[in-house]
């Protein structure tokens, strides 16, 4: 058989079907088209946010200008106004305090809960693990009603410390779920080796499991950070004075007065508020993906 006849069936099927190479090319073209469309769709809002934040109030209000470009030059006037003539820095500080506390509380509870549920087999551990995840499925738009009574009875209404109490109801279940998957994916021989080496349960957790499960812990940390930073319903319900308010609600309520929208400051505020999660994601994205993947594919 000649080389030509031998390669014919590989490049074109006997019934004239398209070759693998051609199929792959069309698949790639289709992938790129959809990816570009989706990228444009999702990047347009942030783009609009950035260019609006860099315009003067006059340009924003000028209806004759194309809103998608900066016609009168870049200005940082909106940021200056935001930091000097609004309570934005107070909101930022409150959000940072609430978020850091929530992340610390969440990780302490989640790591310990996941370690016990994922590695220390005991009666009912499977049902408990499922139960924890089920609580995550109850939306915060329903939970805020009973939580209002609890927060009120604890005297934490209109205090950002109340948020430190209620945010973990959003973050702990999912973080525990991620960590359970991650801890379960670690071979059991590792804790048996540690047991034989002389480690107790806490030494095993801190010296073996936490370092080995670091990608999962980082993934859970990023998740709880993002949820706490972006929470809207709870602060909207439980906080009503500016000195206790957080970024999400504070920026909107202080910069929109009746039908007057301070678009430039709103966009500058949104941009600054979005920066911390963006920075964290940029640095820890690899860990985040590795953590989620390991949790998903146990074994």
């Amino acid at each position, binding site marked *: 058989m000649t080389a030509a006849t031998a390669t014919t069936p590989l490049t074109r099927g006997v019934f004239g079907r398209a070759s693998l190479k051609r199929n792959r090319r069309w698949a790639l073209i289709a992938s790129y088209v959809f990816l570009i469309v989706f990228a444009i769709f999702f990047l347009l809002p942030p783009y609009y946010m950035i260019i609006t934040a860099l315009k003067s109030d006059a340009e924003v209000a000028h209806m004759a200008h194309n809103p998608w470009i900066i016609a009168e030059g870049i200005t940082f006037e909106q940021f200056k106004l935001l930091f000097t003539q609004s309570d934005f820095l107070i909101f930022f500080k409150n959000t940072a305090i609430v978020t850091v506390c929530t992340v610390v509380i969440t990780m302490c509870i989640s790591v310990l809960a996941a370690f016990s549920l994922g590695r220390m087999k005991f009666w009912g551990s499977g049902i408990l693990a499922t139960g924890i995840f089920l609580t995550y499925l109850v939306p915060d738009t329903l939970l805020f009603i009973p939580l209002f009574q609890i927060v009120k009875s604890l005297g934490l209404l209109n205090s950002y410390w109340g948020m430190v109490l209620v945010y973990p109801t959003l973050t702990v279940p999912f973080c525990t779920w991620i960590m359970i998957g991650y801890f379960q994916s670690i071979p059991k*021989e590792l804790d048996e*080796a540690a*047991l*034989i080496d*002389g480690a107790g349960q806490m030494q095993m957790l801190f010296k073996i499991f936490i370092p080995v499960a670091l990608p999962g812990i980082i993934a859970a940390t990023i998740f709880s950070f993002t949820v706490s930073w972006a929470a809207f319903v709870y602060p909207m319900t439980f906080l009503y004075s500016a000195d206790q308010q957080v970024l999400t609600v504070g920026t909107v309520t202080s910069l929109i007065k009746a039908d007057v929208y301070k678009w430039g400051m709103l966009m500058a505020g949104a941009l600054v508020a979005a920066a911390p999660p963006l920075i964290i994601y940029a640095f820890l994205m690899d860990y985040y993906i590795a953590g989620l993947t390991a949790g998903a594919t146990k074994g």
Partner: protein
Amino acid sequence: MAEVALRNVVKKYDDVVAVSSINLDIPNNEFLVLVGPSGCGKSTTLRMIAGLEEITAGEIVIGGEVVNDLPPKDRDIAMVFQNYALYPHMTVAENMSFGLKLRKFAKDEIKARVDNAAKILDITELLTRRPKQLSGGQRQRVAMGRAIVRNPKVFLFDEPLSNLDAKLRVQMRTEIKRVHQKVKTTTIYVTHDQVEAMTLADRIVVMNGGKIEQIGSPNDLYHHPKTRFVAGFIGSPAMNLIPAKLETNGSSLKVRLSDNLSFPVPENRAARYRGAIGKDVLLGLRPEHITETRGANGASGNSHEFPATLDVVEPMGMETMVFFKVDGVEVCGRVEPTAAKGSGETMLLRANLDHMHLIDPNTNRVL
């Protein structure tokens, strides 16, 4: 270093009996291998000795002390796992020293022990690497190093070579034997590979269905199996077990394998087998005891020549395996490469009956 004893040890998982009342005495410095097929209870036995499984009944004694209720860390044992179980975030040196640090050893002592173990295992240059930067064989050496530095009373090995390729497995087998010769510590080694068991062990414990079938030296088990299971399990290729009938042949005995093939029973065994005259038996004969007729190989007063039509011929280099059928049962012989005929041809073979075994198919005991 210590002796280990198991007294009527039982392990049950709900109603399933994994280990059924086993008794075992392992003297100081002995290399004991637990061998058997998957699910025979060998790993469970090892894990009970390690303290990783609670025992349902019985007593485990290490160094004269009953350790039933002691946690693994207080039993002074070290274990090497099948998948190495190295801590992935630690370097080789940190892996090896982890147990010593937890036991609050002085830094100088830890360093000396790690260096010494690394020297024994030839892994000194790997001490700063992490497990993911090591090959399978190197990882297994580190796992052994982690056990050696502890200087424990007992080493436990749970199928440590199963994850290695065939060539490396042979190398590491020699390595383990060499280490045991240097570090004379009581060792209990679990494997399903009977070649590993034969080459490493001072004594082998053959387990089947949660029970001990036989305990003995490798040669003892190979030449004097007590049960059908041991006869078939130890040895590669396995012993031929051919259905036969024990008959009288004048004043002597013979085993009839088919209408036209029977072997005379050696005189010195006649008294032993006389109780089974007229009964169905299994004739056990290892492949190396069915050889070519040329030369003195297998020739003795108690050998018997017979023709066989070869089904399959497998050249192995230094020997050739020949397969033929006796009354529908496949039988394997081992012949000189130059003496072997081709498949489909008839070859004259010689059975060395000095090494024959007769097995009662009802009790599965060797007669």
